[in-house]
């Protein structure tokens, strides 16, 4: 499934909540709880995304030529948000991650209630994921 197809899927799911903020927040937290457990050995300062108000750990690896992210956060809502990013980007080609444009946040009305500081945190997460994608792309090219 393409990055934009996953975004459309997410937009459809959130549309069912009908703009109810409390339900939206609960749903985001539920999504976070479904993230696979984050390996304790990788819960290091090095893997913390800078620029987030809450703590977010993020790692990336390659499976074949596709990228795989693992993430975690110490706050439930941020974990839910990063889980959406993991869902969108996992199994994609590094180039597609690099060239992606994320529009789902705006479409599901999240910008409205996610404070500026956390929005910046969200931007930092996306930026870190793209940096990983660039690193993976380089790695693939060197191996070739």
């Amino acid at each position: 499934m393409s990055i934009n197809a996953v975004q459309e899927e997410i937009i459809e799911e959130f549309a069912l909540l009908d703009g109810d903020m409390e339900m939206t927040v609960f749903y985001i937290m539920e999504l976070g709880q479904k993230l696979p457990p984050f390996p304790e050995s990788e819960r290091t300062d090095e893997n913390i995304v800078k620029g987030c108000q809450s703590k977010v750990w993020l790692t990336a690896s390659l499976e074949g030529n596709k990228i795989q992210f693992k993430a975690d956060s110490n706050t439930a809502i941020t974990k839910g948000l990063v889980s959406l990013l993991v869902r969108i980007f996992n199994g994609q080609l590094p180039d597609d991650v690099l060239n992606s444009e994320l529009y789902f946040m705006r479409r599901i009305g999240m910008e409205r209630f996610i404070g500026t500081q956390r929005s910046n945190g969200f931007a930092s997460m996306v930026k870190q994921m793209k940096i990983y994608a660039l690193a993976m792309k380089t790695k693939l090219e060197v191996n070739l």
Partner: protein
Amino acid sequence: MVPNATQTGIQVDSLRQEFPVLHQKVNGRDLIYFDNAATSQKPTSVIKALTDYYDGYNANIHRGIHTLAEKATRAYEDTRLAAQQFIHAGHPEEIIFTRGVTEGVNLVASSYGKTFVTAGDEIIVSALEHHSNIVPWQFVCEAKGASLRVIPVSDEGVLDIDAFKELLNTKTKIVAVNHASNSLGTINPIREIIRLAHEVGAVVLIDGAQAAAHLDVDVQELDCDFYAVSAHKMYGPTGTGFLYGKKHLLEAMPPYQGGGEMIREVTFAKTTYNDLPYKFEAGTPNIADVIALRYAMEFIQRLGKENIAAHEHDLLQYATERVSAIKGIRLVGTAPEKVSVLSFVVDGIHPFDIGQMLDARGIAVRTGHHCTQPLMDRLGIEGTVRASFAVYNTKKEIDALVEGLERVVGFMKQA
């Protein structure tokens, strides 16, 4: 249904009509504003004072000879007289307008600190301080080779006065503490702190940010040397406030900033400075907001600080009982004397998540370290959820907070 009028005579329902911002929906629900320790809302009299000034007599003050300038100057100086009366200062020139407590502390640190503190001296703050009453003193210590000492705090959030006595000595030059803690609400025994500090010859600055809207302040009776206030935490506009300083101290202090207004005569060879308070008010001040501040003080005086304190105490007591009864919630800061601040943590749930979930229900609280990181480190927590009450809050709103918290805790527990 819980009645909204307390025994104190504060008629909350009609009072709320004076605050336009309170009457709106947030995320589909009635706004409940419990972030008053960060900034309080403004009554229409304050808002109207701002628009009246810009609509009717906007002019630069003090040097103008035309009618508008005189009117603006008079209104500006009327606020100084009102501030003098508000904190019972002896002289109007002991009131220096600032941007707020942060600038007040920086003014004293910069001017008094850099003049009268020397290498080896000591400055004492408390473990309850806001960063704005820590960092300016660190600047002084760094610049002068002085050291910063800290009055410790108990797990309940009470300052250890015996330890303070131990810290005091002839090298102590400045003691800077808050009247009430922004994170925990603790009201500090400043009268005793001031007396003890004076015994060793130190001067005392009181950060009154969390006290001015809630407690009666009499700077002469307290005998404090400096008292700093922020307007926006006491129903006034943002970007202004005032610093009280004893006249003889202010006179001995060099100017803080250079510019217009603060000078008597300028030549390239030498500049002489204006008298108090203008020596410390360089440049065109925040005229409109200073003028509007008088209406905030009038608002408080009309209600009566005793009535405000009684109403808020009632709310705090009710909230303390109801919130602490929720399973999994632990109150942070349980000092016997508190202003209307309720800080708490919830087992296994990050404060950010609580804040975000309450916001989804239209309830505004603050989460995080509240600019008191050393205090949070001391208490071994990352931050708290803080609900802080003002005179326009009601028990019904506290019920809604409790309902929201129960729902959040319930949701997280089942997850």
